[in-house]
């Protein structure tokens, strides 16, 4: 069975030295099962971590590598790991893999899980050893049925080969791993909402502090890491920090490689493993092939629905957190979207805010009431029924649903693209009012 996640990432030239996340992908898009994974050096990093390295050295290696979370927020993984308690009596600890990939325009974790389930399992095994977790859960969205099947098959293979279970590789370390599938709701990707959902509760976010490292799933120390983050761990442990730090382009403050993509009406939409610091223009022109004939690039988003819109002139920004911050937004997941000149920004934002409003968990008032309000205003502007003051209302919502004003990052993510669209494409919003004004007889 050829997986639907088969795509351009399978086709570019790759090597173990330069493409740690994708070099094992098969040209035919079939999953890499255990025998092939091991033949391609798989689980050698796990052996090194479990048999040869001290637990604290694994944590230090990941800290030194500068690995940052790949789920969109970019928090340093080693720092997150370091928050786990030193108290040895707290010996029931969990490692959760956030595989609830639902961010619009994000399809990287799906490819990793469908085609290389053992890379994730090896990453989780090493990370669990570092975190002293005895059990892990992969929190997978329910719609990823191929990923669920492949992960479960790979877990069975790993168990049969003694790579999961008791006394793994004779190291004395025990680790068991389960796939937990969800039942919808984007908010489950927020790490404390994910913990509530795993516990069988409504996926409302939890108050922080305490952080999951102190009080996580079932009140136990818990670390939540994204799929792609965990998939980086084997190569870091296997090849070392110096190698990892040599991967990114000059000038990048972030290290390693990143699954990056471009979609929308580009010639060759796709996903590729590229070094941090690659200019967005290279991603857009050389990999995605630029716009399809007949379409012009109007705006682009660097990494998912929760990142701001940028203009074509910003394509020279290098793809790393600081590089994208310099032009005014966040790199997010690094999977960019091209908005072409046939798209009206009011309609696009209406579509986006409908999504964010529907997916609000309803826990805090600004998000529950503010997002549907933005939808109402945007729908009116789209119809040409906008009232005077509507743009100011939207601007007020951008501020009052912004960072620090709501319980979690859902609403701030929802208003970031809205704020940037108002900034760069204000006349399109104003046109929604002008139409009505023009219709009123003098």
């Amino acid at each position, binding site marked *: 069975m050829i997986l639907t996640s088969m795509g351009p990432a399978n086709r570019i030239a790759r090597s173990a030295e330069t493409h740690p996340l994708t070099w094992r992908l098969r040209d035919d898009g079939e999953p890499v099962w255990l025998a092939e994974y091991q033949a391609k050096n798989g689980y050698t990093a796990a052996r090194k971590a479990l048999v040869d390295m001290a637990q604290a050295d694994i944590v230090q290696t990941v800290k030194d590598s500068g690995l940052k979370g790949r789920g969109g927020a970019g928090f340093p993984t080693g720092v997150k790991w370091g928050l786990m308690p030193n108290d040895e009596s707290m010996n*029931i600890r969990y490692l959760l893999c956030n595989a609830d990939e639902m961010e619009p325009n994000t*399809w990287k974790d799906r490819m990793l899980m469908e085609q290389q389930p053992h890379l994730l399992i090896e990453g989780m095994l090493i990370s669990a050893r570092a975190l002293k977790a005895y059990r892990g859960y992969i929190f997978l969205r329910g719609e990823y049925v191929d990923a669920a099947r492949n992960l479960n098959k790979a877990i069975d293979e790993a168990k049969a080969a003694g790579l999961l279970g008791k006394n793994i590789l004779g190291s004395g370390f025990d680790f068991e791993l389960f796939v937990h599938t969800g039942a919808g*709701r984007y908010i489950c990707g927020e790490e404390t909402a994910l913990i509530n959902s795993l516990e*069988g509760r*409504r996926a409302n976010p939890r108050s922080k502090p305490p952080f999951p490292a102190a009080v996580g799933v079932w009140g136990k120390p818990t670390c939540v890491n994204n799929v792609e983050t965990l998939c980086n761990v084997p190569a870091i442990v296997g090849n070392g920090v110096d190698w990892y730090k040599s991967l990114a382009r000059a000038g990048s403050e972030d290290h390693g490689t990143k699954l990056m993509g471009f979609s929308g009406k580009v010639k060759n*939409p796709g996903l590729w493993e590229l070094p941090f610091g690659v200019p967005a223009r290279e991603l857009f022109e050389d990999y995605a092939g630029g716009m399809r004939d007949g379409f012009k690039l109007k705006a682009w988003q660097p990494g998912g629905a929760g990142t701001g819109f940028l203009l074509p002139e910003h394509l020279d920004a290098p793809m790393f957190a600081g590089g994208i911050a310099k032009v005014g937004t966040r790199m997010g997941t690094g999977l960019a*979207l091209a908005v072409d000149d046939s798209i009206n920004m009011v309609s*696009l934002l209406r579509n986006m805010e409908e*999504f964010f409003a529907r997916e609000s968990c309803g826990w805090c008032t600004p998000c529950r009431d503010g997002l549907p309000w933005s939808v109402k205003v945007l729908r009116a502007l789209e119809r040409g029924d906008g009232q005077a003051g509507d743009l100011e209302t939207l601007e007020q919502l951008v501020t009052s649903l912004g960072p620090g004003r709501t319980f979690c990052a859902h609403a701030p993510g929802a208003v970031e693209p809205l704020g940037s669209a108002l900034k760069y494409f204000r006349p399109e919003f104003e046109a929604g009012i002008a139409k009505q004004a023009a219709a009123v007889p003098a």
Partner: protein
Amino acid sequence: MSTLIQTDRFVLSDTERSAIEHEMHHYEDPRAASIEALKIVQKERGWVPDGAADAIGAILGIPASDVEGVATFYSQIFRQPVGRHIIRVCDSMTCFIGGHESILGSIKNHLGIAPGQTTADGRFTLLPVCCLGNCDKAPALMIDDDTFGNVDAGSVAQLLEAYA
């Protein structure tokens, strides 16, 4: 003619019961199996009938109101009957740019249903879904467990034919 009020007592089948009991043991607290338990019931019956919350709550040792709270929170748990096949149309901004609204229009023309509705013959239910992670092949949709990419409004009817 069925009555408006369901009076039949809900009973879990042996298969459902043993599947739920199996899932419970993957977690430190049985409550964690509540979503999976609802999915197990839904798999057998297509939806989660009234009374399932009591039966699931009794196995997991939690109040039925908690099970119902979970059942009504998650968008892929159905608390009313749905069609034999579920069409999930991705409505992410990438699929919006790819033209998903024309696909919804085509489904409306062909089946006469809008998102949230079920055909009169009980064959299809149409639902929106969060980004299916098929963005390089937008617009995307799922029919049951099958994902399709590069769908166009003209070919939707043909895709649906395979689902009786």
